[in-house]
């Protein structure tokens, strides 16, 4: 589903984001990308989203070599990738319902399908009653659930999360993790960058560890510090 071959990203100012990454993620995987701050997690996520292009190496998503995609094709790549960030990125002047429906509107989904899918996905993330609320009327956890609903409403095969629990207290974070686990069990491939040791240890999923831009550990099932 996702394959990186010898991927290196050097930023224009010369600082090294990631270097020589080789990674293969299969359909249905749940993969943690861990590492301390500055280890290159966000750089890897941005490469997957084609927000950045690699300096060298190949990235293949869904059998498509994304290096070769033209600007015009990028939106269609992104429709395969749901994305959730640490800071939620909700539109403050739109309701929860509108925030989620927005993701369908901009890819020109039929109104009928929007009216059907948005309530369904809102109840899936436990916000069935909050459709009319505005983001500033919600707790952090509820805001992140809204963002999650927006990320999965178009049913992308891959969900990419960059520190999705970074702004949440441990209990709320745990709720989000259960939700991600549910979504993964429904068949969605999940790539989640985090430096939350407790969460990674508790989930016992695949863990890829970055250090100064290099993959230093890749274990099939384990915790934050487990040896390969």
């Amino acid at each position, binding site marked *: 589903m996702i394959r990186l071959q010898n991927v290196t990203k050097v930023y224009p100012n010369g600082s090294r984001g990631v270097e020589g990454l080789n990674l293969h993620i299969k359909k249905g995987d749940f993969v943690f990308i861990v590492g301390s701050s500055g280890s290159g997690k966000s750089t890897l996520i941005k490469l997957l*989203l084609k927000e950045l292009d690699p300096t060298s190496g190949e990235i293949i998503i869904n059998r498509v070599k994304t290096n070769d995609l033209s*600007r*015009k094709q990028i*939106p*269609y*790549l*992104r*429709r395969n990738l749901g*994305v959730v960030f640490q800071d939620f*990125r909700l*539109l403050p002047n739109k309701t929860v319902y509108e925030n989620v429906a*927005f*993701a369908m*509107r*901009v*890819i*020109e989904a*039929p*109104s009928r399908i929007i009216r059907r899918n948005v309530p369904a996905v809102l109840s899936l993330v436990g916000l069935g009653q909050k459709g009319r609320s505005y983001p500033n009327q919600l707790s952090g956890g509820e805001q992140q659930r809204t963002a999650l609903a*927006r990320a999965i409403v*178009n049913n992308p095969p891959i969900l990419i999360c960059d520190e999705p629990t970074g702004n949440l207290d441990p209990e709320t974070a745990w709720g989000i993790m259960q939700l991600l686990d549910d979504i993964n069990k429904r068949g969605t491939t999940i790539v989640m960058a985090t430096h939350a040791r407790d969460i990674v240890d508790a989930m016992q999923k695949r863990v890829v560890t970055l250090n100064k831009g290099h993959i230093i550990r890749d274990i099939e099932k384990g915790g934050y510090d487990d040896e390969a």
Partner: protein
Amino acid sequence: MRPSTIRYFLKEGFSGLRKNLLMTVASIIAVAACISIMSFSYCVVSNLQYMMDQMEDSIGISVFLEGDVTSEEIESLKTQISQIEHVTNVTYVSPADSLDKLKDEWGADEDIFIGLDDENNPLSHSFQIELDQIESQDAVLTALHNIEGINEDNVEYGQSVSELLVKISNVFQIAGIIVMLILGVISVMIIVNTIRISVVNRRVEINIMKYVGATDWFIRWPFIIEGIIIGLIGAIIPSLLGLPLYAKTVSLFYNYVPFVANFIRFRLTGDVFSFVLPAALLFGILLGVVGSVTSIRKHLQV
């Protein structure tokens, strides 16, 4: 495109403008000023042109021949005059024809006609010359003077009025185009800025749109709609004000200077505005689109 998508673009376009009301109003005023100048110069120039056309129909150049002329001389002169460039028609008028015409115009019973008949006719042999346009008059006059047997004293033409009209028309045309261009550039610049602010206001939204896979054009359209709305409103306002203003001005003119109506007719309001209205709308839209596209290119890195 889905109707719901078009509705979405319109809604976003209008809401973008509402959130940025001051700049929107400034843009609309700039476009309206530009379109007013365009419409005003068109009204003036097209009316002057219309008047000149009327005069061209009636004026032309007349050449009067002195004394008795043989029919061979008449034929030869007629051929020479016909060959002058810009001359579209030459008619020979005999003294008898002229007399009949005068009698028609003044009434055959007038005292001045007593004792005048075909045998005793003081009027000259003459040619009526028609031109393709008033602007050609000078060239034709020069050519006429070069013909053997014709000199300045033989030639009559509607000189001063036509030359003045040509000059006024040219001045309005050139000044109109210059002012219009300047205002057009200013309008585009203000629109570019208005759309820029709109883009900045919506950068979070644009960012999210990109992540969920909106195409570049889907992101651009609401801003282009903003430009079109500015252009349309900026065109409609002066057109709607200009139409009754033109009609009123013309009727005032006819009322207060009634004798003028005998030899000058203005173009009908309907005729003028059946051109001005669509031209204004098109030009307004053009300004809006040029402004928004320029702004998108500079400020929207999608």
